[in-house]
C-alpha cells in the first residue's frame, strides 16, 4: 500500500503510438490534460481489488500477534489470550479502509523537427492530486471482546486495557502512530512535478507504404520519490532516471488507414532512496526507515499496435498495448537481506490496455491554405483490460496541439 500508486513502474498509456516525425523546422506545442480517478488495482493474482485492500484486515489474534513485532509484548499478549480462553483464530472483527484518488496531469509538450529525420521533444508533467482516505472498524464478536477485556481488567492491567481498546477501536491509525507514520489525512490535495521527459525520434526508413522510426527517450529524476512517512503517497514520478529505446513502424494501408506497430524497452537506472524496510513478508508497513537504500527498479518492455483512420482532419483510432516490468531490487545494510527482498515483493507488473482515440486537426486544411494555422484537438480514452500489480482504473486524455 505504501508509496507510489501511479508513477513507479508501469503506467497506463495516454496516447497511441505513431512513427511520424515533424518536418524540419516545424514546431509543435501540445497540451495534454490527463484525468483518472484510481480506486481499484489488479493484485498480484491479477484479480481486481480496491486500492485500500491492505487496510481490510481481520482483527484476529493471529493477525494481531503477527503485527506485534516486540517478542515481549507478543508473549504478554499470547498469555492474556490464553487466559481469556481464546485462541489465534478468535477475532474482534475487521478493520476497513478506502482510498479514492483523482489525478489530473497537465503535460505541456514542446516538439521540433530538428532535421528531416530527427524530431526532439520535451514534456513536463505536473500532477494535481486529490486523495480521500477513510479508515474504519467493524467489530463483530462481542463475546471475544468481553472475555479479553475481562482478563485485562481482572489481572489489574488497566493501562493495557486502555491500550488494547484504543488499538482495536482504531486499528489502522493506532498502528501508523506506533510505527511513526504521519496520520492519515481524510482529504488531501496537492500538486507534484513529474519526471521530465526528453524525447528523440529518428526516422530511419520511409517509402509510400512504410515509415520506420527509432525512439530514444530519457526520463529525468525531477519527480519526488514517495515519502516513507506517508502510508499513501501519490507522487509525480519515481524520481529516478530512465532510458527508453524503441522502434515504431507505420504501415500505410489502403486509403486513410494506418497500422502502427511499436516495441519499446525502458531501462530504469539504479538510485538511492529513503524508505521503510518491511519486517514481514505479508505487510509493507514497518517501523524501520532506512536512508539511502540502493534501488534498482525493474526494466519495462512494451509492445503496441494501433489502427488509425484519418480523413479530412478527422482521426479515429484504436490501439492495444502490452507491458511487462521486471522485479525491483533493493539493497541495504541495516537489516537482514530477506527484508529487502520483501520490499520488492509484488514489483513484477504487467498490463494489457486498450485505447480509443478521436480527434480533429486542421493540418490538411492548412496545407490547402484553407485554414490559417495547423492545429488539432483529440480525446483519448484508455481502459485497462488485464494486469498484475497495476492500477486498473480508466484514464482519459484530452490534447490540444498547435504547429508553428
Amino acid at each position, binding site marked *: 500500500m505504501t508509496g507510489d500508486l501511479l508513477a513507479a513502474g508501469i503506467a497506463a498509456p495516454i496516447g497511441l503510438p505513431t512513427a511520424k516525425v515533424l518536418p524540419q523546422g516545424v514546431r509543435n506545442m501540445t497540451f495534454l490534460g490527463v484525468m483518472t480517478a484510481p480506486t481499484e488495482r489488479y493484485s498480484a493474482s491479477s484479480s481486481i481489488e480496491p486500492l485500500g485492500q491492505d487496510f481490510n484486515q481481520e482483527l484476529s489474534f493471529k493477525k494481531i500477534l503477527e503485527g506485534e513485532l516486540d*517478542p515481549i509484548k507478543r508473549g504478554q499478549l*499470547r498469555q492474556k489470550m490464553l487466559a481469556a*480462553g481464546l485462541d489465534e483464530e478468535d477475532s474482534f472483527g475487521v478493520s476497513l479502509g478506502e482510498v479514492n484518488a*483523482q489525478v489530473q496531469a497537465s503535460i505541456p509538450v514542446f516538439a521540433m523537427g530538428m532535421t528531416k529525420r530527427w524530431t526532439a521533444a520535451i514534456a513536463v508533467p505536473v500532477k494535481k492530486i486529490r486523495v480521500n482516505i477513510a479508515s474504519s472498524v467493524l467489530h463483530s464478536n462481542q463475546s471475544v471482546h468481553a472475555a479479553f477485556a475481562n482478563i485485562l481488567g481482572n489481572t489489574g492491567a488497566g493501562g493495557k486495557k486502555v491500550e488494547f481498546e484504543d488499538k482495536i477501536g482504531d486499528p489502522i491509525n493506532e498502528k501508523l502512530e506506533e510505527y511513526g507514520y504521519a496520520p492519515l489525512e481524510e482529504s488531501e490535495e496537492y500538486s507534484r512535478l513529474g519526471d521530465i521527459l526528453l524525447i528523440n525520434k529518428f526516422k530511419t526508413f520511409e517509402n509510400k507504404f512504410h515509415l520506420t522510426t527509432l525512439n530514444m527517450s530519457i526520463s529525468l529524476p525531477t519527480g519526488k520519490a514517495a515519502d516513507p512517512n506517508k502510508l499513501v503517497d501519490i507522487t509525480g514520478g519515481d524520481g529516478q532516471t530512465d532510458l527508453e529505446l524503441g522502434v515504431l513502424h507505420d504501415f500505410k494501408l489502403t486509403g486513410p488507414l494506418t497500422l502502427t506497430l511499436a516495441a519499446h524497452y525502458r531501462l530504469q537506472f539504479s538510485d538511492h532512496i529513503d524508505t521503510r524496510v518491511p519486517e514481514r513478508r505479508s505487510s509493507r508497513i514497518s517501523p524501520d526507515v532506512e536512508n539511502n537504500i540502493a534501488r534498482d527498479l525493474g526494466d519495462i518492455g512494451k509492445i503496441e499496435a494501433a489502427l488509425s483512420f484519418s480523413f479530412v482532419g478527422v482521426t479515429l483510432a484504436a490501439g492495444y498495448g502490452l507491458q511487462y516490468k521486471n522485479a525491483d531490487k533493493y539493497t541495504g545494510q541495516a537489516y537482514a537481506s530477506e527484508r529487502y527482498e520483501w520490499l520488492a515483493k509484488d514489483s513484477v507488473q504487467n498490463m494489457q490496455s486498450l485505447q480509443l482515440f478521436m480527434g480533429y486537426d486542421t493540418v490538411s486544411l492548412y496545407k490547402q491554405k484553407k485554414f490559417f494555422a495547423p492545429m488539432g484537438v483529440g480525446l483519448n480514452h484508455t481502459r485497462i483490460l488485464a494486469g498484475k500489480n497495476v492500477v486498473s482504473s480508466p484514464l482519459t486524455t*484530452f490534447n490540444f496541439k498547435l504547429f508553428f
Partner: protein
Amino acid sequence: MQLKSLFLLSSLFVFASCDEGFKKFFGADLKDPHLKRKKFDVLYPKPLLVNREVKQEIRDATFLIYANPQDFNTFVYLPNPKEWFDLFKFLDYKMPYLGIQADLENIEKAERLVLEIQSIGQARDDAFLVTQSVALDIAGMDREKLSLIKTLKKDFTRYKCFPLISDKKKCKLKKDLETINNVKTYKVKGSCLRIKQAVQRIVDLSITANPAEFAKFNKGIDQCQQIKKLSDLIEPLEQKAAPYGLVRSQGKQFVTDILEKLQTDTGALHLAIISSLLEEQEAERDESPIPPRSQIQFNKAKTAFNIFKLFIDFGTDGYREYSLANGKVEQLNIVEIKPGIFELSFVLHAPEHRTEASLTLNFHDPDLSRLPLSEVHQTTQKNIFGVRMIGTTENFYLDGTMRHGVVKIELDYL
C-alpha cells in the same frame, strides 16, 4: 468556419474536463468513501475507592526484567516436565510444555520466556486467590469454636495417660500410687462420643489442668457436635487449598531458577526482590535475617504518596532503600489516563540500571465478586487482592542496553 469549430471543440473539452459529470462519464471523478462502522462499547472500571484505608506495608511485590532476543544466544531452559505440569495444573487454560530449546530462534526464546513467566504469574495469582479465599472463609467462621477444635484435636486425638490399678478403663495424667507404672497412649478417632469418653476416662483432668482450660475442654465436649460440623466444612477446604499453596512456592522457584540462569548468561540483572510481608514470613520461616519493611502511604485522595519507600535487593549488596527521600526514586506521579484508570509512574535508580516504571493502580472493590476460578472458591465473594499496582518497566543499563520488565506491588486494605 473551421476555426470556429475547432475553437468550440477545444473549449468544449477544456470546460467539460472541469465538469464533474464529464469526469464521471470517463470514470475520473473523485469518489467519497462509504465505509461501514461498528464499534464495541467500552466499559472502564468504577472510579477509585478513595474512602478505603490502605495498609502501609507491602503485602507482596515482584520486580523482574525480561531479556532481549540477543541475550538468548546460548540460553537453554528445559524444566522437568512433571514439575511443569504440576505448576500449571490449576490454570484455567492449557499450558503446553514450553521448554526453551537450543534450536529455537532467539526471538521465539524471548517470547516463550515471557509467556512462561506471565503464566506462572497467573498460576500464582489464581493460587493466591484460592488460598486467601479459603483463609478468609475460615477466618469468617466462629473463632471460638475454631479454637476449641484446635484444643480438642491437640489434646484428645492422641494422649498419654496412666491407667488406674482399680479400673483400667480410667486413667490419670500424672503417675501415682493408684496407677500402674506403664503409661498408655490413647488414640481417639472419629465421633464426639469418643472424645467425650476420652475426657471422661481421665479422672485427674480437673486437677491437672488449670480451671480455664478445664472449662474450655468441657465446653468443647458440650459443643462437640456443632464443632464437628464446622470442622467437616473446614477440612475439605483446607485440603483442597493445600496444593494451591504449593503452586505459589513452586512458581516462585521456577521464576527464580530461570532468571538466575539468564543472569549467568547475560551478566545483567534480571531479578530483584522488593521486601514485603510475604518476604518477612519466609525469612522468619527460614530463620534468615528479617528484611527492612517497604512502605507506601497514599494521601487521603489517593492522588499522591505521603510515603514511598521500597527496600530492594538488586543482588549486589542486600536490601537498600529506594525512596523519594534519598533521591533514588524520582518523578513519582499518579495520572488518570481514562476515567477510573490511574497510572503510577516513577524513575528508580538501581545500582546497574535506571528503571522507568509505569503501573496501573487497581483499588479492587471489596463488594465486587470475581468469576469463580475453581470449585474451591466458588462460594467466596470476597476481595482478595486489595490494592494492586501492576505494570511494565523500561530498564536502561550502563552499556546503553534497554530491557523491558514488569513490576507488581500489592497492599491490603485496613
